[in-house]
């Protein structure tokens, strides 16, 4: 208690330094939590995929359910030889995985990870509660192609290069409809703050209020995540492994892991923008964490849906992907924008 009051006093006296320290601590906690959850996500994906395909999935390391399989994989990746191919652009090659992971982790700072109820008041769990966090997340999402591009360019390999090309072309095509969808949501919620957007969904989810936007955003999100049916950047049957063909050891581990971190964060964004975030009926006995329970249930459903889509659809061709983005999703997202404005004005 003494410590707590001392901290409060310090915070009042030196808000800037306090903010800096709290920010750094929160960022460290966030980074570790995200990494652990993303690891669990890899395990979840393997397990769900196994169930969907009538096989077992990991079942040896870490008990019957193979929970520690990814730990074993990580150790393997750490101990593997780190190869830098001859003719590679060394500095870019080394920096690419770091840039990829860093740009991804930037998103995490602005996302609320659920909320808890203290004294009958919802307190969102967010590191940086910015006024424009939705726009910020959207902006940083567009950076992800750069890490992949650097990896593909520097590997000095035709297939890596093709993967990088595809990634950039796809990103440009889908960033626009995705942004328009985010703006439509912001128009309806009268705010770009993710917490406010969630609060605006107290009565009706935006997935219901603008179903078209939900579908477009979902498709664009899957594309940004680079998951089936939009994983042309690393279509192993066509261009070996795309931009991470030449990577090995822990650098490959980082690139691989980045995909799962971004899958996690992207799903959280979808839940926040369209599925009402942590809103839901208060569960009586454990009302303290009932928003968290709702939030994670929704998140789990979205993640499993993503895995499900992955195992049940064949891959698009890259020109079909960009066609879909420019010719179908972009006009539709504009229609959705008009709809959002009209409905927003009508109810306002």
């Amino acid at each position, binding site marked *: 208690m003494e410590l707590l009051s001392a901290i409060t006093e310090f915070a009042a006296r*030196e808000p*800037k*330094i306090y903010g*800096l320290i709290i920010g750094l601590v929160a960022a460290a906690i966030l980074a570790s939590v995200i990494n652990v959850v993303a690891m669990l996500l890899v395990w979840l994906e393997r397990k769900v995929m196994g169930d969907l395909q009538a096989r077992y999935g990991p079942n040896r390391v870490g008990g019957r359910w193979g929970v520690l399989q990814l730990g074993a994989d990580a150790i393997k990746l750490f101990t593997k030889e780190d190869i830098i*191919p*001859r*003719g590679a*652009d060394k500095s*870019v090659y080394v920096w690419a995985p770091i840039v990829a992971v860093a740009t991804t982790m930037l998103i995490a700072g602005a996302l609320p990870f659920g909320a808890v109820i203290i004294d009958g008041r919802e307190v969102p769990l967010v590191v940086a509660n*910015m*006024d*424009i966090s939705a*726009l*910020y997340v*959207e*902006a*940083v999402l*567009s*950076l992800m*192609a*750069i890490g992949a*591009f*650097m990896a593909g*360019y520097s*590997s*000095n*390999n*035709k*297939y*890596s*290069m093709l993967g*990088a*090309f595809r990634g*950039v*072309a796809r*990103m*440009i095509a889908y*960033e626009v409809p995705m*942004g328009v969808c985010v703006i439509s949501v912001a128009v309806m919620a009268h705010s770009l703050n993710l917490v406010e957007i969630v609060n605006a969904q107290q009565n009706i989810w935006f997935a219901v209020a603008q179903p078209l936007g939900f579908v477009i955003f979902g498709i664009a999100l899957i594309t940004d995540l680079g998951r089936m049916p939009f994983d042309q950047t690393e279509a192993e049957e066509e261009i070996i492994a795309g931009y991470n063909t030449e990577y090995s050891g822990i650098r490959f581990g980082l690139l691989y892991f980045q995909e799962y971190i971004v899958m996690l964060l992207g799903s959280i964004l979808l839940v926040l923008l369209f599925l009402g975030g942590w809103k839901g009926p208060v569960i009586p006995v454990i009302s303290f964490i009932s928003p968290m329970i709702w939030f994670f249930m929704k998140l789990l459903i979205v993640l499993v849906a993503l895995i499900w889509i992955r195992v049940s659809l064949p891959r698009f061709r890259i020109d079909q992907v960009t066609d879909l983005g420019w010719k179908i999703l972009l006009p539709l997202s504009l229609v959705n924008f008009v709809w959002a404005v009209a409905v927003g004005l009508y109810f306002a």
Partner: protein
Amino acid sequence: MIDLAQFYDIRFLMDLGAFSILAVLILGFSILTVWSSNMVHAALYLLGAFASVAMLYVSLNASFVGVVQVLVYIGAVGVLILFAVMLTRRTLVEEESHG
């Protein structure tokens, strides 16, 4: 006149430090952009300079401008530049492909 006493104030030092780091980053990236003989490297340095400018905006309490800087300059302009550079002839990049 600069009040020397304020240099002992840690808040001022923090602001000054943040600004100095960002200034060095912006200038460094900009100079590297111009000096670099590899076009792709130059484009990547340019992205770094854009990102530093965005951070500078945020440190000046203009976070909206900062985010728009990221969205427009890095997300759109920068990536388009990268795309254009990749579409140039390989000999301009002065590299041989082994792939």
